[in-house]
């Protein structure tokens, strides 16, 4: 029982990630703004619906801007608090857009000491209907002195909302899968070198749990995708390569089943498994970086940073990765022990 301390650790970590992952609220944010477009030179009265907000609080110190870019913004004339979740903000849009463009989206920024800064990117489309007016008013009210609110809260992201928490349960599935499958490949290499049945048994048990984690990653990802990307399967590059990975490992299990002689089964399976593990590198690490993807950090390195994974989220995400890897080792170990007993009973 003393060697099993890591199983207790696994349970504690997973409990922590589920409880903290679900209990910590999101930062306040801007859920909806109306209208969606306005002509330059007009008075815009923006109806704002907040998420996790309490607009009644600190309403005298609240400021708001419509921001075009780093040097062009216009401050609000008036802010009217309707209730906890609703404010009405009026802006006098300058008569012309800078650079004489025909239309430009503006981001809404609301700031006060209670909520901290809240941003809705591209909240309003500003159309330059009557070009020729002065655009200089855009530069007179810079966005400055934003408050910083240092609470332990997860970021508010449009479209994602509360599903940002899914990152604690979906992404560690892939980490665990990759760990199990590489560990399985390593045992297959060991089997080819030393020919010990132990290694073959470990390779097969680790491949089984790795595949289970792959299936879990795919299922949880499809569920998440349905409510954020619109469809469960959108032929995204990462969806495709992980489906191919699973097919490769399904073939591995079929291969194992098709041999009666345990020696031949172990040897053939080991060779196949080493190739399968080697295939993981181009499939999971190279190809997704080469093309565009709906996943964060498309066409580049994985987006394990910024607003998609800030420091509050890291405090849950990385323990979750460790916890699920330990869980995978535990599941593999039980399967390994059962297979070992089966073998001992048969002889």
């Amino acid at each position, binding site marked *: 029982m003393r060697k099993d301390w890591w199983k207790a650790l696994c349970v504690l970590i997973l409990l922590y990630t*589920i409880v903290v992952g*679900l209990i910590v609220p*999101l930062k306040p944010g801007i859920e909806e703004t109306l209208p969606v477009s306005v002509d330059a030179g007009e008075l815009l009265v923006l109806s704002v619906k907040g*998420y996790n907000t309490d607009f009644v609080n600190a309403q005298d110190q609240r400021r708001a801007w419509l921001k075009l870019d780093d040097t062009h913004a216009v401050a609000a004339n008036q802010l009217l608090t309707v209730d906890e979740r609703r404010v009405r903000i009026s802006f006098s849009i300058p008569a012309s857009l800078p650079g004489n463009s025909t239309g430009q989206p503006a981001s809404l920024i609301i700031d006060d000491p209670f909520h901290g800064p809240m941003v809705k990117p591209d909240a309003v489309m500003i159309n330059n209907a009557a070009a020729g007016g002065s655009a200089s008013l855009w530069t007179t009210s810079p966005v400055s002195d934003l408050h910083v609110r240092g609470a332990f809260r997860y970021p508010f992201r449009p479209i*994602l*909302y*509360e*599903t940002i*928490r*899914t990152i604690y*349960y*979906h992404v560690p*599935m892939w980490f665990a899968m990759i760990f199990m499958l590489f560990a399985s490949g390593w045992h297959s290499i060991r089997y080819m070198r030393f020919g010990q049945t132990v290694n073959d048994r470990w390779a097969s048990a680790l491949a089984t749990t790795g595949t*289970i984690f792959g*299936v*879990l990653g795919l*299922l*949880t990802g499809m*569920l*998440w995708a349905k*409510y*954020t990307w619109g469809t469960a399967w959108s032929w995204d590059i990462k969806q495709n390569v992980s489906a191919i990975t699973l097919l490769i490992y399904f073939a591995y299990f079929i291969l194992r089943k098709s041999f009666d002689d345990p020696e031949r089964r172990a040897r053939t399976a080991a060779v196949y498994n080493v190739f399968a593990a080697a295939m993981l590198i181009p499939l999971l690490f190279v190809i997704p970086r080469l093309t565009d993807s709906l996943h964060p950090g498309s066409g580049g390195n994985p987006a394990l940073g910024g607003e998609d994974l800030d420091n509050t989220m890291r405090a849950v995400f990385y323990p979750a990765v460790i916890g699920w890897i330990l869980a995978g080792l535990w*599941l593999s170990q*039980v*399967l390994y022990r*059962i297979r070992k*007993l*089966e073998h001992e*009973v*048969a002889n």
Partner: protein
Amino acid sequence: MKYRISTLIFLLFYLTRPALGHGESVDFMRDTGKIYVVVAVLAVIFLVLIGYLIYLDLKTRKLEKRIRHGSN
């Protein structure tokens, strides 16, 4: 035994379905900041792991039978 569990699971989902579908909002899953997507994700993980547990259970049962009857 296997059929009884699956029937139970099916009934559980079938009976709770109308309660979920006819809520006040248009879409239950998109209500309350889509929090039920996270709940569903956790439920999927739970169910798959339970499925694996049942698989191990059946394997262990076979093993027990072999130990009990196959001592020749």
